[in-house]
């Protein structure tokens, strides 16, 4: 009877919230999820892993291990970074990374011993012995409500939990670190970019644990409502989520949103779910909204269950990929190894290999680069001639599709003129680099590329400006200090002079007498 009622309620849409809103712009793209198969492929452990020592904000990290150390899986290597398997640290040196310019970053080279042993070899170093998942969850909630920040942080640090969406922002901070109360927690299962289907594959295989993770996120964030947003083009995943949500009583509700790129990006998604467009210079948390990726929710559950985040599922796709699939790999596995171990080695020499989706990604020049938490996709595409850009015909299509409500044609003009103030005026910062404008431009103008360029220029200028302000402050402080010192010295001399002048006559007499005695003593010597 109960199940019947439930089905009825679901049919009538009581359980599934309909999205009340839409977002500006965007494009209906062919999802093209060729990587989505029966199951997730699990390649073997590679002989070595490369872990770049850099965080989501591109700041370098200091390693807490040394060359020659033996580590176990889950052991902390640096703040927010754990060893993805057991083995020996062979080197800590700069290594090429997934980067448009193959930039080298200081990295740990870990030789895997193949045993994949978990835990900390020196458990006594680790006062916070971890319990089971629900123990850890209630402990965290208790620490949070009693305001024990540092203990909470210590526990959270062991999770190594960074977002598995695009930016890799530390998730615990999102859930636990907000000052304004969380009204809406959005679990992002939209995954709107073509070719990428790693989250969909996870939902199909792990929906029960995902829902446990969502429930944990709800409890940690203390949100008023939680909405799981998923695109209507994923019927199998929707069914899995629905039945998992039914089995576990939680405050989360499923919302099925239209399939339209880029709904999965944070600001369009928030606009779609809440109807609020959050301007680029404000944070979602200011509006009581927190958004986390659905794969991150699963990672949260695993982390609570003493398995810190050290691997991810990523999609192998693209027109030329012979064997498209979703693979689960440890962080630090090289792209080369992944392609070889999944039967895709034929593409490595004569194709364009891309990291990230067809719109958000970039071409790789070197395949010996390690994947990280935010590598969600690897594509193999045929090499193509780049079509030359024509002049802008001012059709305005780019503005129509821009989810950030920008005027890309104007921005392009300012960006190419290196007029950063003009770019600022037209809100370059708000561009989410979705690539919609490129897709519609009849003149094939490389708009997004130009915006990436101008954005990095503006960022660089800002850091230079900050540096100049700091230098000027240090200079002024030093001037002030030197002035004070000189003044103090002058004052001391004057003080001294005054005491000499004001000293009483008898003293002077005494001095005179002493001088006379000294002279008298010297005289005989001279006359001799």
């Amino acid at each position: 009877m109960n199940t019947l009622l439930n089905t009825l309620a679901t049919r009538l849409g009581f359980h599934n919230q309909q999205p009340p809103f839409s977002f500006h712009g965007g494009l209906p793209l062919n999802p093209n999820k060729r990587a989505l198969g029966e199951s997730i492929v699990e390649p073997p452990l590679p002989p070595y892993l490369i872990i770049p020592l850099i965080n989501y904000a591109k700041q370098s990290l200091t390693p807490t291990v040394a060359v020659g150390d033996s580590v176990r899986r889950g052991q902390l290597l640096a703040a927010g970074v754990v060893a993805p398997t057991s083995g020996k640290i062979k080197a800590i040196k700069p290594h090429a990374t997934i980067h448009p310019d193959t930039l080298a970053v200081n990295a740990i080279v870990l030789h895997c011993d193949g045993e994949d042993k978990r835990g900390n070899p020196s458990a006594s170093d680790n006062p916070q012995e971890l319990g089971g998942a629900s123990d850890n969850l209630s402990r965290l909630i208790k620490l949070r409500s009693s305001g024990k920040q540092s203990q909470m942080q210590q526990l959270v640090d062991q999770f190594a939990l960074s977002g598995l969406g695009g930016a890799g922002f530390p998730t615990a901070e999102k859930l636990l670190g907000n000052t304004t109360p969380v009204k809406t927690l959005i679990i992002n299962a939209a995954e709107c970019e073509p070719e990428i289907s790693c989250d969909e594959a996870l939902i199909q295989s792990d929906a029960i644990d995902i829902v446990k993770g969502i429930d944990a996120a709800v409890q940690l964030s203390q949100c008023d409502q939680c909405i799981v947003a998923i695109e209507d083009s994923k019927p199998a995943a929707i069914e899995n989520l629905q039945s998992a949500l039914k089995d576990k009583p939680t405050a989360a509700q499923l919302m099925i949103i239209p399939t339209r790129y880029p709904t999965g990006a944070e600001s369009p998604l928030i606009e779609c779910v809440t109807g609020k467009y959050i301007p680029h210079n404000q944070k979602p948390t200011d509006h009581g909204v927190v958004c986390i990726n659905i794969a991150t929710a699963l990672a949260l559950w695993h982390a609570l269950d003493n398995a810190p985040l050290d691997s991810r599922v990523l999609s192998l796709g693209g027109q030329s990929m012979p064997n498209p699939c979703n693979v689960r790999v440890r962080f630090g596995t090289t792209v080369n190894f992944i392609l070889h171990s999944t039967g895709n080695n034929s593409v490595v020499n004569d194709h364009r290999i891309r990291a990230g989706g067809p719109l958000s990604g970039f071409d790789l020049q070197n395949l010996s680069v390690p994947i990280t938490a935010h590598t969600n996709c690897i594509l193999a595409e045929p090499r193509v001639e780049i079509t030359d850009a024509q002049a802008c015909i001012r059709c305005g299509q780019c503005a129509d599709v821009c989810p950030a409500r920008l005027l890309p044609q104007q921005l392009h003009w300012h960006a190419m003129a290196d007029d950063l103030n003009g770019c600022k005026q037209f809100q370059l910062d708000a561009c989410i680099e979705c690539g919609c404008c490129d897709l519609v431009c009849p003149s094939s103008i490389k708009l997004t590329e130009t915006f990436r360029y101008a954005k990095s220029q503006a960022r660089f200028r800002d850091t230079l400006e900050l540096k100049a302000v700091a230098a000027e402050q240090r200079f002024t402080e030093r001037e002030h200090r030197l002035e004070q010192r000189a003044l103090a010295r002058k004052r001391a001399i004057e003080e001294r002079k005054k005491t000499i002048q004001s000293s009483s006559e008898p003293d002077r007499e005494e001095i005179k007498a002493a001088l006379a005695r000294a002279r008298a003593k010297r005289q005989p010597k001279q006359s001799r």
Partner: protein
Amino acid sequence: MSFVIPFLLVVFALIATGALLARLSRTNTSTDKNNTSAMIEQVNAVLPQTQCAQCGYPGCRPYASAIIEQNEQINRCPPGGDKTITDLSNLLGTPVIPLNNECGVVKPPLVAIIDESVCIGCTLCIQACPVDAIVGASKLMHTVIQNECTGCELCLPPCPVDCIELLTPQQTAADWQWPRPA
């Protein structure tokens, strides 16, 4: 009597205008002063804050004062290069002129590094550094705080053992820039 009243009126009027003028001119001088210091601030904000003294003044702010108060040329800042000259000319409405080569030449940004095995701990470089970017103590090893160093080269001449070198800073992920599209 009929003459006196208009006469008095004229006198009053004159006195009143005089007082008003005096008052106006007083406010004028104080706004002038405000203007001058505001202009110095604006010029200083355009200068790169390297504090290298290549302009012939002991730092960026002193040079900014000289530009405003003594009509100093705007082409004396080598670290700022053409960009600073253009910005200054836009700000002050004066023509763009080429960099004065007597002050120095344009160089890529550099940072100082101390060879710590050679340093004798004489503290002379600390005293020379205009932005307090060197830490160390007497007879102990010194080091440059890379982030604070402006690359002004002022620590090079005082070092008795020549252990300070200027290097191009390493490219970091945070500073990396996308190439300019063709």
